[in-house]
């Protein structure tokens, strides 16, 4: 076997393209493994774990191509192919345009959306120009300074354009999903406004499963309900959806109290639910129901809209014997909001889990969490530096699940699986290596029409002994019941 490395200094290549190129190169004759990555310290460790021996001194400003193949000619050919794909990209666009072409490309009668996924430091100039051209924005990028977000949202609001994001994973416009979204099938006109991408997905899938179709989901980004932004886009989305939808569901995390009050006041008499993840009170105020759990919000909307109907609650399976020495709960999530919701549910049941993205700040934990109960958001910055988000490349998250299944002190492992547009073709790859011992509990956010197929993913998970739920909150409740 021959190993070869090629370092490209100072070139920006997006991490998703590098992942796609790695997979393409691995298909080449004689190549046993290949990896193209940004040279961050985490990625270099990952290469070493994969059996590579990368050279020292690779910086995070470089791209490293690592190939193992049958012969040195084959490694050379693979590296050459990788370099070619880095130059051309994976998709050969028939025509490419520049931002200056935008005004000419937008025609009368269009609803234009510019989807931005560049590094955050470059977003403002692009987004500002797009707004000047009359386009709405779906800003997938994170790390956009808050003052820039405010400027963009103020400008968008003045022009009557949406600025969805920054940090917006999901939007649905007239039934079509942009970013991470599911293939929904129920007809209907429910509108969602969300500052949480996976929260929007979970909510839309659970509504769809219960026959309540979602026509719009306006992602507003995680900062919109902060006092500094003042809910500018949430308010704009509300006016838009009230004209088009028969009911509205809002989903968020820790909204500023004064902004929340204003938003609740703006809802008026339209049937609505306000889901503030992790909140422990539930109450109704006029036509609005306030809760902290997605399932509860869904159940309430079903009761309100489909009178006489109730949402089905998934039963818990009978509990098997778990050895006394197994004490720890380990949660590894790709969806930040589902991680947050799980923590809140577990805390509510007296199980105080630590997290890198804690629902309660006193339970913040860094990377040293071997001996405590945890719910880790593997999509947070420290896990995705120089790598695609785990919804796109779930390898590292799934490896954490497999690794902890081998421990003799782990009682329960909790995870989420997200299907749909933008998610990995095989989001559960590698999980078949899970060892018997702890109870592994998974929720699947997805529909049968998603390309990954809900039923086939469920069958594969159950085939490896994993207990599967349709809802993330129910999975967390079951995990909690096993910790008693």
């Amino acid at each position: 076997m021959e190993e070869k490395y090629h370092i490209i200094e100072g070139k920006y290549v997006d991490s998703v393209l590098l992942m796609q190129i790695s997979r393409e190169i691995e298909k080449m004759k004689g190549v046993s493994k290949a990896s193209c990555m940004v040279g961050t310290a985490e990625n270099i460790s990952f290469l070493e774990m994969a059996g590579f021996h990368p050279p020292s001194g690779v910086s995070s400003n470089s791209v490293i191509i690592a190939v193992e193949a049958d012969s040195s000619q084959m490694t050379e050919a693979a590296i050459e192919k990788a370099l070619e794909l880095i130059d051309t990209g994976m998709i050969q666009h028939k025509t490419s345009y520049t931002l200056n072409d935008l005004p000419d490309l937008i025609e009368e009668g269009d609803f234009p959306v510019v989807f931005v996924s560049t590094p955050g430091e470059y977003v403002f100039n692009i987004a500002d120009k797009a707004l000047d051209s009359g386009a709405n924005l779906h800003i997938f990028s994170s790390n956009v300074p808050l003052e820039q977000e405010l400027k963009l949202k103020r400008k968008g609001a003045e022009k009557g354009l949406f600025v969805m994001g920054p940090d917006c994973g999901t939007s649905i416009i007239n039934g079509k999903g942009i970013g991470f979204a599911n293939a929904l099938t129920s007809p209907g006109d429910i509108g969602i406004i969300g500052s949480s991408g996976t929260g929007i997905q979970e909510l839309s899938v659970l509504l769809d499963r219960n026959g309540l179709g979602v026509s719009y989901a306006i992602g507003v980004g995680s900062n919109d309900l902060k006092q500094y932004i003042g809910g500018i886009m949430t308010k704009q989305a509300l006016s838009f959806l009230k004209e088009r939808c028969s009911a509205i569901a809002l989903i968020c995390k820790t909204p500023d109290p004064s902004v929340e009050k204003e938003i609740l006041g703006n809802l008026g008499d339209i049937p609505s639910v306000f889901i503030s993840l992790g909140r422990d009170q539930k109450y109704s105020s006029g036509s609005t129901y306030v809760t902290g759990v997605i399932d509860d919000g869904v159940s309430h909307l079903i009761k309100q809209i489909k009178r006489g109907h109730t949402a089905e609650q998934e039963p818990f399976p009978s509990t098997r014997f778990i050895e006394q020495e197994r004490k720890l709960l380990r949660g590894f999530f790709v969806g930040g909001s589902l991680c947050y919701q799980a923590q809140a549910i577990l805390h509510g049941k007296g199980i105080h889990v630590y997290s890198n993205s804690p629902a309660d700040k006193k339970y913040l934990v860094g990377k040293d969490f071997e001996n405590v109960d945890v719910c880790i958001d593997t999509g947070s910055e420290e896990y995705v530096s120089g790598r695609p988000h785990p919804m796109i490349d779930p390898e590292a998250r799934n490896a954490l699940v497999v690794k902890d299944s081998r421990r003799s002190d782990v009682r329960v492992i909790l995870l989420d699986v997200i299907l749909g547009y933008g998610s990995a073709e095989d989001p559960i790859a590698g999980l078949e290596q899970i060892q018997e011992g702890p109870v592994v509990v998974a929720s699947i956010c997805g529909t049968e029409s998603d390309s990954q197929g809900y039923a086939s993913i469920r069958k594969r998970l159950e085939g490896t002994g994993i207990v599967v739920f349709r809802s993330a909150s129910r999975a967390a409740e079951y995990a909690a019941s096993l910790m008693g």
Partner: protein
Amino acid sequence: MRSVVESKKLKVFNIGTSWFVRPIEDQGLEVYNIDWSPPVKIDKDILSILKKLGRK
């Protein structure tokens, strides 16, 4: 029940990773690719020399 009909045509312009292009196209939408690469970063010292040379 309010109207769900939208007469406007949803048109998506993609700037950045091409990962999400195909899923959008699969839903029958038009996606236009907008070329983008990060602006070249010029070292402050070099920039000041260029300014002095009047060639900025």
